[in-house]
């Protein structure tokens, strides 16, 4: 703990945006472990737990939660500033499913017992959560999921398979969307269930991705017995609750930081390859820079809405599409500039900043996950432009 952050008030909303930013920045600089700055891949719990616990001790783990549950109760804008400062320093994302998904869900729909059981365990780093939404045949079409939970007395019996479970092998709890009524139409009949990962009948299989990293898992459920008290909210209302969770987080998918980072790497690589002064490179680089600046300007208009306390309109989908496609345009340029080095598996010359193929592959999922860009364009067409179904 350094002096500046000790001096910060308990309610950080009382600080001006500028002061708040400085306080956060200094804390990060003073406390973030240097060896995990800008990690090229998503970190496992064993790697990011120390930072998680540092934030926990500081009381900064849950910026959006109410203060009585150990949160900071920050305004949306200050939450954004906090994320910006984390990204600026290259602080890794922690195993934050408990913070960003389960916490808000229980605060809104949980019983007093559920809140008392689960929220402190998240703040203490005792419960590490993972998400069980996607299934092999329910990707973009989430409502068609098939993992089912049948009530036997006061116990649900769960059978099925989840996939794309981020850091599933690190978690000791999973939250599930399960089908509890097959007679109704597919968005209905879905419930929300909390399940310990050590329940008999659960098998976790890591999936190795194109980046040769095991960020995701498949999770199999074979007659897994879950107490009915682990149901959140009403039965068959899981879909509605899950959708309600997708609120202001959507703006993060459009944060220009990813593209900004890639563009810096492009400048470095061009320098190293000796093409920085070539007119063709300069033209391409200038276009990308201008695209990035325009994205930032558009992003600012949404941050401004938050600043004014307004909600985010469906057009925020545009940010996600523009950012992810710009990110990929930049990584395309990285490969071109790298020439033969684009084929190397590892960073050039052992320098992690010169790893064109790594960034290129890391950029692949950005147009697939978080609602594929095809789905986002459907949303823009229908919910923003009001085009017919």
């Amino acid at each position, binding site marked *: 703990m350094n002096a500046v952050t000790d001096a910060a008030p308990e309610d950080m909303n009382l600080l001006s945006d500028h002061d708040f930013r400085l306080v956060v920045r200094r804390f990060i600089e003073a406390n973030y472990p240097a060896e995990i700055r800008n990690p090229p891949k998503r970190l496992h719990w064993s790697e990011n737990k120390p930072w998680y616990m540092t934030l926990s001790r500081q009381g900064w783990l849950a910026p959006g939660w109410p203060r009585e549950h150990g949160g900071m109760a920050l305004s949306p804008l200050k939450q954004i500033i906090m994320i910006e400062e984390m990204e600026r320093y290259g602080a890794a994302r922690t195993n934050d499913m408990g913070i960003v998904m389960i916490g808000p869900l229980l605060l809104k729909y949980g019983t007093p017992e559920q809140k008392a059981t689960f929220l402190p365990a998240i703040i203490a780093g005792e419960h590490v959560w993972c998400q069980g939404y996607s299934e092999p045949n329910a990707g973009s079409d989430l409502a068609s999921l098939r993992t089912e939970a049948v009530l036997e007395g006061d116990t649900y019996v769960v059978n099925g398979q989840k996939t794309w479970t981020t850091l599933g092998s690190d978690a000791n709890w999973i939250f599930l969307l399960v089908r509890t009524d097959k007679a109704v139409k597919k968005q209905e009949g879905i419930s929300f269930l909390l399940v310990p990962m050590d329940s008999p009948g659960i098998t976790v299989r890591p999936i190795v991705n194109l980046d040769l990293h095991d960020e995701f898992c498949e999770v199999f459920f074979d007659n897994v017995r879950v107490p009915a008290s682990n149901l959140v909210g009403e039965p068959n209302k899981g879909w509605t609750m899950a959708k309600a969770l997708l609120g202001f987080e959507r703006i993060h998918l459009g944060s220009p930081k990813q593209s900004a980072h890639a563009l810096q790497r492009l400048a470095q690589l061009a320098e190293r390859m000796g093409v920085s002064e070539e007119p063709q490179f300069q033209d391409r680089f200038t276009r990308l*820079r*201008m695209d990035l600046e325009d994205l930032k300007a558009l992003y600012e208009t949404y941050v401004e809405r938050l600043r004014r306390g307004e909600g985010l309109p469906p057009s925020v989908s545009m940010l996600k599409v523009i950012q992810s496609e710009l990110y990929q345009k930049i990584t395309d340029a990285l490969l071109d500039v790298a020439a033969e080095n684009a084929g190397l598996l590892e960073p050039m010359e052992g320098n992690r900043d010169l790893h064109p193929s790594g960034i290129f592959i890391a950029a692949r999922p950005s147009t697939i996950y978080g609602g594929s860009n095809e789905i986002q364009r459907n949303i823009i*067409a229908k919910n923003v432009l009001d085009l017919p179904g």
Partner: protein
Amino acid sequence: MSQQLAEDDRAESIRMIRDSAAAIAPPGGDLKRVRALRFKTPGFDPAVWAEMGALGWTGLRVPEELGGSGLGMGEFCALAEALGAGLAPEPLVPCMLSAMLLSAAATHPTTLIGSGEAGEALAAMLTGEAMVLTAWQERANTLEAPGTPGAARLFLPMAGGATHFLVPVREAAGLALYIQPAAGADLTLEATQDGGSFGTLRPAGGVKILDQCAAVLEQALGEAALGTAATLLGVMDRAFAITLDYLKTRTQFGRPIGAFQSLQHRAADLAMEVALTRASVEAAAASLDAAAPNRGAAIARAKARASDSAMLVTRQAIQLHGGIGYTDEHDIGLYLRRAMVLASLFGGAALHRRAFMTLAPESGDE
């Protein structure tokens, strides 16, 4: 808190400008007036020009002590956007440039022979009696005004209706500014795709109204580029709205064509272009009004984006209309024609990309 109040005032003043623009370019209004003026000299309506003066638009950016409203680029861009959406042919943006030069001349501390002429011309433009164009351009694809004595000045929009020309001329002491009446000037006109014209002026004589106009001209050219970007924003935004309407109403194969996913996704792409352009133009206007150090780069970005996106959106607007979009009688083609003229005026996308490269040197870490 007071900053917030100032911002709210600003938003209110911009809203009022938009409302007042409806007097001449009503949203969803028809384009009969625009069509009637096409391909005739002067290509715009002097009565509407006078009305624009009366509404305070010609003097929007002129200091209050000279009879203007002293408003900022935020307000001007809102107005230019609305007029762009309505395809108003009156040359407000080029005349705003002249108004800035005349304002500088009228308030210049050194008394020149012509400072009275400058004040008179400005006053006459603010009432809509005069239309003053600045004859700065000597070749295509430039934002530089070398002021070569005797050289022809090109691409003067709607020059057939001008009453005066301002002519920068390089002299030993610097770039001087002359005013010459349009009557008797050596001016030739060429028709433009949008029904207006470009004039070529061979300047002669006139009265000197400024000794040194290089700095103010450079700034005014930047503002004119941004005003043109805002006009293009209006053009593309309305062209897109008309196209969306068409997608919702035109049926083929038993469905509205806007129900076809490939057209939906194309519409989404165009919506993103419009949104990026709006964000870019508004950010540039704000940085100009705040005299931010990066305002030059912001203008370059806004005009490059607006030029490219307006061409993309209006081209696709034709495509999405199909055969009917290729007829001259359908209004959508008017938007393409206007975009074709404005995209390169006060610098096209490539020129502004080069400007951005110079004005915004890359920083290692921003």
